[in-house]
């Protein structure tokens, strides 16, 4: 296959993906939407639109974050979610409410809370993972094991804090603190879009170096990348993206793993600009499609994240066991 063909093929693949996304969006908005009853229709739309926008935002954030992260650590089977970044976010969010109380502005004003979380997350998580990389000498299996344990640690602390805050209303409080697909955090849509754009703009120069960074530390330094600083800034970006995704639709563990790897497999290229677009589109298809299935086949009984966990877990084992080269 020569280069021109590969390019044309990738463009085609991306176009098909985009078309599939549009199809999914149309289906999602229009199935059972009762257009003949304007009031009901408007009500349904007011429920579906925020969910849709949140899913789109989260897909982009998760896809980009996972790809960037994989290239930073030079490994295809780790994702930020597997290392517990989701749980750190949920933990910090709960901790902020825990410290300031449910009566404070932090609990009542979603945008303020999100801003505080973003800053906290940026500082804490970047520090934690930077330290983890240094300490383990980039030994990926250790990073993963410590990461999984960290995520259960933060999960336990978070549940404990919620129980301490209000032992009777545990479930209600948990629901209000942690978003999920049927309960998206619509208030912060504008803020999170702005946040994503700002991150993108600030890290633009570093993102341009990703193709080289993916070749590994030695090679990147040889080609003149200011490696350590660049990595630290990108890690910060990854952390913020995960924060945005978790804040809008809640934790989805395996989505990043699936879309990042599929994107690499289908788009046979090294160019991150293409890969990130591909992963984002696939994320949208997975989430919106999953939501369609969940809504209309299982009638909301089974949440999308359950499917993603099962499929993602199997895929992960497959990668771990049969793609030895991947780590």
């Amino acid at each position, binding site marked *: *296959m*020569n*280069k021109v063909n*590969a390019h044309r093929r990738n463009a085609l693949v991306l176009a098909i993906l985009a078309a599939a996304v549009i199809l999914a969006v149309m289906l999602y908005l229009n199935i059972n939407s009762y257009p003949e009853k304007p009031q009901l229709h408007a009500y349904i739309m007011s429920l579906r639109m925020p969910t849709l926008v949140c899913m789109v935002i989260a897909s982009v954030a998760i896809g980009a974050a996972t790809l960037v992260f994989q290239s930073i650590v*030079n490994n*295809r089977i780790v994702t930020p979610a597997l290392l517990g970044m989701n749980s750190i976010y949920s933990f910090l969010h709960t901790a902020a409410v825990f410290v300031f109380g449910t009566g404070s502005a932090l609990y009542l004003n979603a945008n303020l809370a999100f801003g505080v979380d973003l800053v906290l997350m940026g500082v804490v998580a970047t520090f934690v993972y930077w330290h983890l990389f240094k300490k383990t000498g980039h030994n990926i299996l250790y990073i993963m094991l410590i990461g999984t344990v960290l995520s259960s640690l933060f999960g336990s602390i978070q549940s404990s804090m919620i129980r301490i805050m209000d032992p009777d209303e545990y479930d209600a409080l948990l629901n209000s603190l942690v978003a999920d697909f049927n309960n998206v955090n619509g208030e912060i849509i504008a803020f999170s879009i702005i946040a994503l754009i700002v991150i993108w703009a600030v890290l633009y120069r570093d993102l*341009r*170096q990703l*193709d*080289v960074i*993916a*070749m*590994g*530390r*030695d*090679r990147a*330094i*040889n*080609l*003149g*990348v*200011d*490696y350590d600083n660049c990595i630290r800034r990108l890690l910060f970006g990854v952390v913020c993206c995960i924060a945005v995704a978790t804040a809008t639709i809640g934790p989805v563990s395996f989505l990043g793993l699936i879309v990042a790897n599929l994107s*690499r497999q289908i788009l*046979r*290229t*090294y160019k991150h600009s293409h890969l990130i677009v591909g992963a984002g589109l696939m994320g949208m298809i997975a989430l919106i499609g999953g939501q369609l299935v969940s809504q209309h086949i299982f009638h909301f009984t089974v949440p999308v994240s359950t499917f993603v966990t099962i499929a993602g877990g199997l895929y992960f084992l497959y990668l771990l066991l049969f793609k030895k*080269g*991947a780590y």
Partner: protein
Amino acid sequence: MNVKDLIKSYGRKKVVNEVSFEVPKGKVLSLIGPNGAGKSTVMGMISRLIAKDSGAIHFEDKDLTKWKSRELAKKLAILTQHNNIQMKLMVRELVAFGRFPYSGSRLTPEDNAMVDKAIEYMELEEYQDRYIDELSGGQRQRAYIAMVIAQDTEYVLLDEPTNNLDIYHASNLMRIARRLCDELGKTVILVLHEINYAAFYSDYICAFKDGYIAKFGKVDEVINKDCLKDIYNVDFEIIRVKDKPLSVYY
């Protein structure tokens, strides 16, 4: 390039100890020595991949740490031992990365010309649209060297480039290193295990032992019975082939 009093320790062990030498410009210099003598570590430090503990490395009269990474990448290229890139990358794309220090990811026509030249120099034309993970070890090594050529630097550093290559590809590679110096006027620094490759293809040899420099000099000054016995603790016989001193040990 000039190296002075370089020291590096891992834990309590000093792997490089007060190493000083000057790299002769426009020549081929080989670093040799037993395992763990510190040659690869020195190579890592002069190519800024490994941080030094103390000492100074001057490159074109400027401290190495004072250089901007990108500017240095136009002057000095290193090829390390571990070359397992996990990207879906075609040979031509890999070689094109050599132009990254100059133009980032957007190639100018001059860049493309340089890439063509590098591919041609390494006789990779027929492979240029193949993915690197489909190539044999020897071909892949050539592709990496083509990338280093495309980087168009005055200094080329190769860390054990003959590792994992069979005799045919290894000797080919050594000839290429020689040609980089003779035809393109580059300064080539190699880390080598094979004493005879070093003896046959270099101008200067720097021999390490236990973190110190045991001997630095022209090939004939280093490759002789006494000197080698001192470095490797093995008896050597020296025979001369094409006026080069080759060593035999058993």
